[in-house]
């Protein structure tokens, strides 16, 4: 024991001696085309053999012992930039120009940062990559998340992602790091984030960094565009919307504004009686007072409205977000970030036949203020954070014969975080701890991530930890409705009225390799989910409350391989996974989760044919989802108050007799989506794109099955597709100046 202490003290002494001889070098990494900060870029000192990663403001701090040295900044899809340091500069700026290499989404794994520092199970996708994924109805950032094999969708129509066998409600959404509550349009067929307003999007799977809370399976964090040093903008037209955006300088400050308007309400036909409109507004200001690091202001609003002109029946909802982030310097290697946010979601459903003639008034609002301190040292960093949040949620579901129970919750929530990052030789370790607490329930969440450079471009990543959320987001699931479009969520505060705390323990191991033109990643993962919840399905032996809660287990392995050439890029991914649940009691039998797909294979191809033509293809094939089979039918007797109670005098309509829940499998699903883009213009001039894409080129009703009664011939139980997926065309034209 004493020997270990001596060694530790000795190592500390060496560290201190090294520290005294070093100086911090600060800098920023910017995108060449618009001077926007690049978050997640790697900066590497060739002489010192030391690297750093930029924060969300594009900033980095590197401790160097000797000068001169050479810094190299890299980011996926961009040419590296190099700067030689002869002396300690005030601030280094590295500017990365977009690379001529076509972007396949899986290429993000080829990011040649210091491999051990790259967080495992994290995908950083530039806007160009997500925009290359063929869209449905509208260009969509969330549909582009299909570039990660960890992401799947409840149906091919949906853009609401779920990750690695966990519920869609377990994913948390952020815009510039601020809370987005429900950023979707039109039954979640497409999201409220259009690629033209986004610089990049990061998907971090659990156990993600301790700075993230309010999610148990993954975080989707989109970064909005910033204005550049000259005014630039553009416009886009699609079959259902018009969009425009612009950004530029205002003195030392930068601004960006964007908007999208769905114009279906102005059309006649079926939209005459029920006008559907949707709008998105994006705004970002980067205020640079006196040469200090810019203060960022993010504003976002999106809304949908579809109410019958005469009856007033319909649905409407909106999202609103305002966030402020103030980065400050604190001494030689210290950084402070102060931030505040307020985010609201409001949804009204009037008279829709969801659970009978149901009226719904859902309200969710949250406001928070927080600070994060970080001290960067030569071999790592230490960070501390805290936030105080007020959260208010209301579910009011009234009317109808199967109305859901409501929820009402107000209160303050506190979160404290601490993190330690340390590098030693080829190894890198991040240890974090997060505490979320409200007046009733609290959750400690330790998280650890380890990285190891194996040489020759190979790296190993290991992560384990706990994630929790102090409330549930439970998607309404209704036969025949939610198969296609998701209508609304129900929120349940945890730790009250028999509602357990949702918390998950995750562990994963992945190995990565990146070489010019080739990238590889393979991983295994497992998760133990506690306090998962869902709406109790209508199935035999499931009497009881409206919701059900239980435990779950997910495990599996995934594989990615991508190859990139000068004109073509191909990415292949395969996932083998299991996801099971035990409902109501620990001793209950484990049954497959409703989206438990054993196999999933995906291919993404980008092909530049020259003269501005670009073809994109996404093919997705998934094995059958579980279904609850029908054993047969029976006739229900008539209940009569007279003598005997039950009689069978009159024939009754057949009643379905279902088998054990999720004990059978339906059909495989698959779709092939294609997109074609033609670029007009070029460098130094305005650039236009004409895009045509088709979701599901295969023209087949590919879908899992559900039991139902035949509609032709003699009445019998048959299995029919849960939904029909027609080809969905999308046409867009955009012009950027």
């Amino acid at each position: 024991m004493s020997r270990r202490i001596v060694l530790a003290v000795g190592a500390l002494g060496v560290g201190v001696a090294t520290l005294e001889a070093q100086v911090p070098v600060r800098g920023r990494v910017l995108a060449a085309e618009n001077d926007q900060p690049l978050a997640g870029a790697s900066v590497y000192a060739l002489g010192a053999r030391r690297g750093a990663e930029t924060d969300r403001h594009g900033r980095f701090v590197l401790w160097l012992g000797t000068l001169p040295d050479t810094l190299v900044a890299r980011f996926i899809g961009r040419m590296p930039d190099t700067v030689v340091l002869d002396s300690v500069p005030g601030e280094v700026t590295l500017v990365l120009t977009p690379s001529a290499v076509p972007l396949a989404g899986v290429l993000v794994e080829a990011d040649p940062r210091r491999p051990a520092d790259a967080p495992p199970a994290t995908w950083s996708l530039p806007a160009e990559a997500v925009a290359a994924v063929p869209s449905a109805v509208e260009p969509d950032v969330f549909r582009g998340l299909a570039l990660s094999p960890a992401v799947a969708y409840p149906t091919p129509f949906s853009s609401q992602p779920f990750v690695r066998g966990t519920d869609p409600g377990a994913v948390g959404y952020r815009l510039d790091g601020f809370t987005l509550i429900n950023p979707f349009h039109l039954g979640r067929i497409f999201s409220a984030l259009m690629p033209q307003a986004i610089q990049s999007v990061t998907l971090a799977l659990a156990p993600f960094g301790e700075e993230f809370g309010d999610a148990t399976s993954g975080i989707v964090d989109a970064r909005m565009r910033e204005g550049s040093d000259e005014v630039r903008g553009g416009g886009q037209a699609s079959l259902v919307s018009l969009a425009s955006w612009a950004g530029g300088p205002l003195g030392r400050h930068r601004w960006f504004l964007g908007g999208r308007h769905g114009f279906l309400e102005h059309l006649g036909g079926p939209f005459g009686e029920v006008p559907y409109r949707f709008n998105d507004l994006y705004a970002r200001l980067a205020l640079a007072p006196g040469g200090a690091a810019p203060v960022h202001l993010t504003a976002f609003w999106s809304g949908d409205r579809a109410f019958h002109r005469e009856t007033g029946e319909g649905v409407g909802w909106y999202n609103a977000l305002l966030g402020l982030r103030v980065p400050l310097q604190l001494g030689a290697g210290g950084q402070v970030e102060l931030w505040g946010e307020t985010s609201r979601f409001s949804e009204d459903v009037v008279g829709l036949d969801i659970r009978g003639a149901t009226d719904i008034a859902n309200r969710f609002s949250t406001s928070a203020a927080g600070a994060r301190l970080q001290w960067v040292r030569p071999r790592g960093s230490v960070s501390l954070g805290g936030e105080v949040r007020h959260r208010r949620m209301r579910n009011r579901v009234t009317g109808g014969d199967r109305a859901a129970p409501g929820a009402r919750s107000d209160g303050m929530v506190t979160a404290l975080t601490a993190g330690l990052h340390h590098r030693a030789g080829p190894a890198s370790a991040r240890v974090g701890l997060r505490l979320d607490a409200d007046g009733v329930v609290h959750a400690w969440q330790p998280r650890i991530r380890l990285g190891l450079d194996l040489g020759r471009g190979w790296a190993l990543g290991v992560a384990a930890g706990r994630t929790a959320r102090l409330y549930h987001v439970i998607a309404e699931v209704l036969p025949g409705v939610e198969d296609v479009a998701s209508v609304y969520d129900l929120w349940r505060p945890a730790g009250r009225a028999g509602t357990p705390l949702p918390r998950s323990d995750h562990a994963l191991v992945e190995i990565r390799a990146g070489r010019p033109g080739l990238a590889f990643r393979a991983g295994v993962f497992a998760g133990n989910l506690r306090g998962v919840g869902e709406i109790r399905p209508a199935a035999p032996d499931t009497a009881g409350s409206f919701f059900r809660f239980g435990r779950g287990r997910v495990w599996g392995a995934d594989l990615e391989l991508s190859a990139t050439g000068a004109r073509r890029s191909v990415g292949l991914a395969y996932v083998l996974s299991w996801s099971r649940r035990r409902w109501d009691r620990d001793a209950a039998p484990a049954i497959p989760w409703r989206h438990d797909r054993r196999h999933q294979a995906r291919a993404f191809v980008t092909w530049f044919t020259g003269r501005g033509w670009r073809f994109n293809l996404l093919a997705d094939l998934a094995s059958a989802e579980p279904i609850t089979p029908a054993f047969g039918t029976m006739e229900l007797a008539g209940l009569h108050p007279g003598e005997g109670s039950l009689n069978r005098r009159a024939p009754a309509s057949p009643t379905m007799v279902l088998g054990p829940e999720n004990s059978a499998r339906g059909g495989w699903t698959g779709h092939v989506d294609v997109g074609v883009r033609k670029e007009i213009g070029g460098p130094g001039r305005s650039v236009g794109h004409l895009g045509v894409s088709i979701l599901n080129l295969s023209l087949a009703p590919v879908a899992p099955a559900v039991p139902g009664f035949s509609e032709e011939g003699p009445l019998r139980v048959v299995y029919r597709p849960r939904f029909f997926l027609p080809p969905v065309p999308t046409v867009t034209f955009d012009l950027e100046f």
Partner: protein
Amino acid sequence: MSCLRAVWLAAALTSCAMREITPPPGREQVVVQSVLNARATVQVLWIERTVPAGDPVTFGVRPLTEPPARAEVREEGGGVYSFRADTANPARFLAGFTPLPGRRYDLLVEAEGAVVRATTVVPPAVTILAPAADTVDHPRQSPLQVTWASGTSRQVAVYLTLDTTDVSSYVFPQWVRDDTTAILPGFAFAPVPPSTRLLWVVAADPVTARVFDPARRPLGPGGEPTLDGNVTGGVGVFGAVTSDRLLVRLQ
């Protein structure tokens, strides 16, 4: 172009491979249906077979191919009552006993290789409080309000039948949850003759209410009505009711 051709071929093969959906095979099961009636001296049990999935649906009773080896109800702390076949209907079985409110009863049926079990607890007695008399005179075109006491029972069906003996006419009850009052609209009394009606207030246990209240009947994954019963080893429902009644003479 070879790349494009490969893509089209893959898409076509994908379409063909997934156009067919193979359903799990259907399975014939024993169906038991019984709702114990605390007002009756003879209890009824229906034992039938399901129509397997994939077979054409036939209407009417589907009796067992062989009589059940055992069909009985065991009373909590009490006797065992065996059901015997009704000579008038091979799917109907009768047992002579009167269940008691608050008492638990266990059903056991052994038939066609299946052992079917279910349990129910008879709900507390229900009493009509208003109108207080057993027989009331009531204007034909006016609504009638009825109030009752049903102990801990939360689900009550209110029936209006033609007379005391004819139970063949199909009547739709008005299901009431978490309340002790119902108003029967005037049009329910309109048809003539006869000039008398029986108003029943039936307190049901949870499974009976869940199965027989159309508004609460669950829908399956395809949106079809399904059974949410309480029977193991087969399918069906084993519930219990108590009831009170009122004779209404229409004016």
